[in-house]
């Protein structure tokens, strides 16, 4: 998230556990759900690309740029993606939300004009149990428009 973090961890420590348990202050936005690379709740950007933080060793991230959901909004202002999630009610319990926000942000950064189908594909590694998917799609399409994706 733009700041240098130095942590001392065992080699087996995942990037997710390093973020959540060893960073100061702890970065708990990325969630531990499946610990298995199945649900996407721990999605972070590693050098700008979305990855499952539970499937990366912390040591593997040494010297690389890690962006968590906490690092998306600059200066306390929500990003267009975050704003759209709030406006479209693209969250319920909110536990999957950080992962979806990061996945959608990465998708729209690459292609603001992403279609519904492309958004579904970009988020196909994220699971939600409350059933927010339809509103997430609405939010992502609206944010894409705001980010200059234009009509599609």
């Amino acid at each position: 998230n733009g700041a240098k973090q130095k942590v001392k961890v065992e080699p087996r420590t995942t990037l997710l556990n390093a973020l959540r348990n060893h960073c100061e202050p702890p970065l708990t936005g990325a969630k531990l759900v499946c610990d298995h690379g199945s649900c996407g709740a721990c999605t972070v950007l590693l050098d700008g690309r979305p990855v499952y933080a539970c499937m990366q060793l912390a040591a593997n991230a040494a010297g690389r740029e890690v962006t968590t959901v906490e690092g998306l909004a600059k200066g306390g202002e929500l990003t267009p993606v975050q704003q759209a999630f709030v406006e479209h009610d693209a969250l319920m319990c909110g536990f999957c939300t950080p992962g979806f926000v990061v996945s959608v942000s990465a998708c729209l950064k690459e292609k603001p004009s992403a279609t519904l189908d492309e958004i579904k594909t970009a988020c196909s590694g994220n699971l939600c149990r409350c059933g927010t998917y339809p509103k997430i799609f609405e939010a992502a399409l609206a944010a894409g428009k705001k980010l200059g994706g234009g009509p599609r």
Partner: protein
Amino acid sequence: MSGRGAEGLAGALGAATGRLQDGDQPPRPPKPGKKWVKTTKVVDGHEREEWIEVDAAGGPSWPERSAMRVLHQRLPRVDGPEKVTGAARYPHDVRLPGMLFARLLLCPHPCAKVELDLEAARKLRGVHAVRSLRPSDLPADEDWITRYLGQPVAAVAAETPELAEDALRAIAARFDERPFAVTREQALAPNAPQVRSDGNLGRRNERGDREAAEKALAAADRVIEATYVLPVQHHLCLEPHGLVADYRGGEEATVYASTQGTFAVHGEVPRHLGLQAGQVTTLVPHMGGGFGSKFGPGVEGVTACELARELKRPVHLLLARADEFLTAGNRSGCVQTVRAGATKDGKLAALIATIDRLGGIGGGSHAGLPYIYTCGASFSEIRSVHTNTDGSRAFRAPGHPQASFAMESVMDELACAIGMDRLAFRLANLGDDVWKRQLERVAREIGWEGHRHKAGPDLSDAPVKEGIGFGVSTWGGGGRPECEVEVRIARDGGVSVFSGSQDLGTGTRTYVAAIVAEEFGLALGDVTARIGSSAYGRANGSGGSTTAASLAPAVKDAAHKAREALLERLAPELGVRPDQLALADGRITGGGVNIGWKEACARLGADGITTHGTWQAELAGNGVHGALAARVQVDTLTGEIAVVKMVCVQDCGLALNVLAAESQINGGMIQAMSYGLFEERVIDPDLGLMLNANLDDYKIAGCREMPEMLPLIDEEDRRGVIGLGEPPAIAGHGAIANAIHNACGVRLREMPMTADKLLMGLEALRAGARGAREGAGGRG
């Protein structure tokens, strides 16, 4: 546990809706100044309806919906910004100085004698506690035998999650396997291992008149017989069960719990910390899903408290994902065999059912058959069959989705048997006009009018076929006098509202603030809702869709009293009568007065205004209907089943926040679809091991499976607030099963409805057609 108290009444009470009821009449005439209202009571997430006596005099009332400025609008959640930035702190995210991470060791067998040697684990660096969970009331000379697959047997606490895992591995546990039953067949076999001390058959009850039902069945023009099988479904809350117990010695502690009942946890944790209730604060700041499975602290929460008490350090114990599947509850499976008959003119004449609830060591749930539809004569036998698996818990409309799947399938099979349009057959057998208008509405939205093959499947040669299915649902969702709410107006104009109630993703925090904002003519952002703390007013657990109908009236009452107190205080100073003043758009006006909210509040004393509210029966309602339609595409070559569109119309009285209500309806539809198409707990019957205790092999619906969804709120319902968490989750999978049949003629009676079952069904249809041709001396 599994809510046996409420469920046990299921068979004895003959409500055609499947809801448990006290009866249609109040028990006695009301006392002077009182009246009776029917409402919903929830025990461990299971609902029953009962009559309660309340004040007859009307309290505050909701404004006309058209006059509402904040309520009944599309309100983004007040905690949305926290949740999208990662700032929202869930119990799982709590990090405290000196905090230890705890884990449970689960018994890997369905039934085993347990012996533990903890010494090696205790010696590990960074491990602070290792304890056996052997029941304290078990005599020392008696064997410790576990009862279900995944029963916790030991706990560890260590400085990191990694070290805690090491400690689990270092426990020398000896499990002597004992004979077990993990399937219904094993439990019912002669000489089956005894699962519970009272045997393998639990609560059994009968309902209806066997003789009359048999007679009606014999007289019916067409009869069907079928068995419907539903698997065990997991709640799969993304945040696991558990809590963080912050105790560092002394006489105070704070507990951060992932629960749907702040006070359900608070009522139990203090004694496990060795403290009294007043010395402990239980907090539920945010929580990551419950769906009926998270009320009391559970063994994980109790263990966290006991470890914290022993170590005098904060302890974090939230279950690992695999443990969630094995020891955090589930929706009971069931096997239902039904014989049913209809008359040629389209009446459901008779239904006879035997129903086995499969709730593991728990009782399981079933709402009873017939479900919703009016039936000439019926008889059913319901029993629980116990297995050595985790006990079922309440899960979004306990018992209803099971009953609905069988009932909607029966209705469809009978409609086909008499050659009637399946929608028309349903309409002809519904006793209540609300369901009829709702069914007609979803039929319009799903495109039933233009659908080519209403009575039978698509017989064309097209490889991909489309079908439509329907279903109806019911629930209570009423409120009770179980919440106390405080509203404060400060001299700086700040408004806050306090309740111990919790927000499990339903949007509680937002409507609590919205009700107060509406009352004061303020914007949503002008009110701060403080919830999820045992330090605030008591509140019921969020089970059985009773939160909104219990809490909203108490919030409204407190806000109404605060408004009156404010105007009474200000009016004399402003030279007007209180009843001349109106609050709107952040201003106080009337009788020549026109001042801003803050300016007015500045006239208050330093102590401001504080009022308390309680439940007001007039502001809530009870008893809802719902109808659902699904359009499904079936690929007859690959067996792939794709839901194309789902529509659900739901009444819920006054929808406090339309946007959140829509989300709830979507969520219910999606969970039902996921249940119908993907979800199933798989246990190897010989080894007694669960084969899919992870999120890869236990599949739930994801982005790629999402159909077009249309959530509709039935605005013709003009009653007060009624909950709607449960009902939209009831009818989806049954509607999908019927849509599959309508598409291709395959009747899937066993969930999940997967491609392999569909292909086998198609093959059976082809074989049947060949057999019929050959039998008739055809071309072969």
